């Protein structure tokens, strides 16, 4: 009887719990558990319950599952997603049922386009966790430019090949870096996208190799593809710097690539601070595998931000319910009044009405370091203030 009196808030959390990115889903779930354990799953006298919504990495399945969570499980608020296409499809559902949903990774452009097409309708989908790739990826150009200026590297040509997985993310990243390289005076000689899950890159790589490029840059989000690409690049004897954005997203990547990943550049958060390392070790101790900083790590931060939102809503609006969440989002989160500074990775997580739904990017806010992998470890080589060493150039390219 007393249970009925207890107030419960149901949070629907979307993640790729099965399917090609299931590993990421697992990390999400675990890191959210760790974050909510810290507050004992309570906000005031509200008990927090999570409903795990499996996106299976598919836009349509995710939308169906989200809708099911709304009508069957009667969730009050949504939290988190990974893929941008999942965000885009669930945005539609959130708008239909007017369910506020906080913080989704989805880096690609479709969410932004959708939001801009009707801000009023889509205001329920509150904020991206991961900004558009072009805002971050400028780090690559600066790193390369610096290495050239310092005389560390004399590229044989100013030619670039862009590759990537054929989805919203891969294409968004590809076209962003393409433009940046072009602006920096490089020539993009080929641009190739492959299907999700492709593991055969000999034709693609030999094509790139024939073009004699100095840099191959792109992103593939699933581990089999990206590790196959890296390994085969070495097998065919590609003599170019490889920029593989997101190689380190999944903790087990090194097992798959081995030292074929040496010298590869990536731009990804690192376990740099002592708090971050502690989180990593706690996680490993509790769940038996090492988390990725960009998935479990960032998700832990956003969970912290989300808890702060819940607490603020209770404090400022008196009760936890859909309307108040929406109010809190519109009045405090979107205009940047409510920000989060206790995170492990960024100094401050903040939104502004100008950049919404992207977070504010730049020093002091949201920024990723550029790292270079050697023997399975990432060394930070950009920006200046975090730098651990200069870029290393492999023997055969000097």
């Amino acid at each position, binding site marked *: 009887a007393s249970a009925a009196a207890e107030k419960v808030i149901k949070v629907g959390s979307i993640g790729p719990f099965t399917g090609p990115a299931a590993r990421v889903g697992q990390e999400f779930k675990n890191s959210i558990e760790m974050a909510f354990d810290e507050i004992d799953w309570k906000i005031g006298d509200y008990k927090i319950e999570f409903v795990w919504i499996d996106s299976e990495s598919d836009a349509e399945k995710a939308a169906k599952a989200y809708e099911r969570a709304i009508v069957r499980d009667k969730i009050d608020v949504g939290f988190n997603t990974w893929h941008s296409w999942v965000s885009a499809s669930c945005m539609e559902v959130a708008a239909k049922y007017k369910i506020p949903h906080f913080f989704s990774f989805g880096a690609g452009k479709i969410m932004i386009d959708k939001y801009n097409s009707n801000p009023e309708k889509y205001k329920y989908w509150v904020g991206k966790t991961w900004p558009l790739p072009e805002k971050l990826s400028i780090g690559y150009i600066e790193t390369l430019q610096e290495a050239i200026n310092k005389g560390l590297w004399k590229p044989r040509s100013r030619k670039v090949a862009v590759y990537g997985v054929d989805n919203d993310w891969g294409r968004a990243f590809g076209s962003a870096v393409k433009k940046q390289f072009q602006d920096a005076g490089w020539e993009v000689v080929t641009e190739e996208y492959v299907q999700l899950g492709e593991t055969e890159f*000999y034709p693609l790589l030999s094509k790139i190799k*024939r073009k004699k490029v100095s840099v191959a840059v792109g992103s593939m989000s699933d581990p*089999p593809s990206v590790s196959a690409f890296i390994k085969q690049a070495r*097998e065919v004897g590609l003599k170019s710097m490889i920029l593989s954005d997101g190689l380190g997203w999944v903790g087990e990547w090194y097992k798959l690539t081995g030292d074929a990943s040496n010298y590869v550049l990536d731009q990804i958060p690192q376990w740099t601070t002592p708090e971050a390392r502690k989180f990593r070790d706690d996680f490993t101790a509790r769940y038996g595998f090492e988390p990725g900083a960009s998935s479990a790590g960032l998700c832990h931060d956003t969970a912290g931000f989300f808890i702060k939102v819940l607490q603020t809503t209770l404090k400022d609006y008196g009760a936890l319910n859909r309307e108040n969440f929406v109010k809190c989002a519109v009045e405090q989160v979107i205009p940047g009044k409510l920000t989060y500074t206790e995170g492990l990775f960024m100094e401050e997580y903040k939104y502004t009405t100008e950049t919404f739904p992207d977070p504010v990017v730049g020093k002091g806010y949201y920024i990723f370091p550029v790292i270079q992998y050697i023997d399975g470890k990432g060394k930070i080589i950009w920006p200046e203030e975090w730098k651990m060493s200069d870029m290393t150039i492999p023997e055969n390219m000097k």
Partner: protein
Amino acid sequence: MELLMEWWDILVAGTLRGGLYALMAVGLSLVFGVMNVANFAHGELYMIGAYAAYFAFTVFHLGPVSSILAAGAITFLAGIVLEKVFFYPLRMRTQKQWVMNSFLVTLGISIILQNSAKLSFGSTYHGITQFWAGRITWISSMSIAMDRVVGFLIAVMVITAFVFFLNKTQTGRAIRAVSQDETGSQIVGINLDRIQTLTFALSAMLAGIAGACLLSINPAYPTMGLNPLYKSWFVAILVGMGNIGASIAGGLIVGLLETVTYSYIGGGWQDVISLSVIIMILLFKPNGLFGVKGVKTALE
């Protein structure tokens, strides 16, 4: 010169790819020919082979060749078990509509195996860096990983041994005989049950070896079988279901077709193009490229 190089690369890449398609397709074709089973769980046997090789190589620290052989042995056993558990009772009970019923059973098996793998190993990727270090450079502008070359050679050897077995040994001939007339085979003294179990196990073994050979390229995970399954169907249908010898040619054709598409049109269009070509061919050769009409290759 540039163009020649390009073609050469395509040829090499296509052949390497095609060899392994052939290995898969031979098994699929064999089971269809002998047991009239359109096996939709062939990809899961490939998956079992990949997992087996992974554990053999990383956990039990067997050598590459032993790992691949171990995978072959395990899938062979898995084949025996599957045949005895699923197809034997079905055979005892089904008279009519065998092809459809057994096909549905394979769908069921595929779902069971895939989800059991998820349950036992999770959805993560169990991969290795490589079996053999090193690479080979030979006229080509690109060099080729040892793994691929050896994998391809294993495929060729296995297929050759297999074709020899089918045509030149008494057991092999018995397998072919069963594929054509079961009553006739019994009459001349062939033990049907044994041959059918053997056939399924051999086919499973071929798929398992393919999965094991490719472990360094495709890590093991529960749903990894789907793509190879599709590809082996393409090959088997293209050349005529049940035609073992032609499956080899078919594997190479599909492998090349895909590589050409990949290089000139774009990765995503591989399936569209190779499927369109296969559809066109079927329109003119309804029994497949090398199928013979009136002779039982298709079902009736």
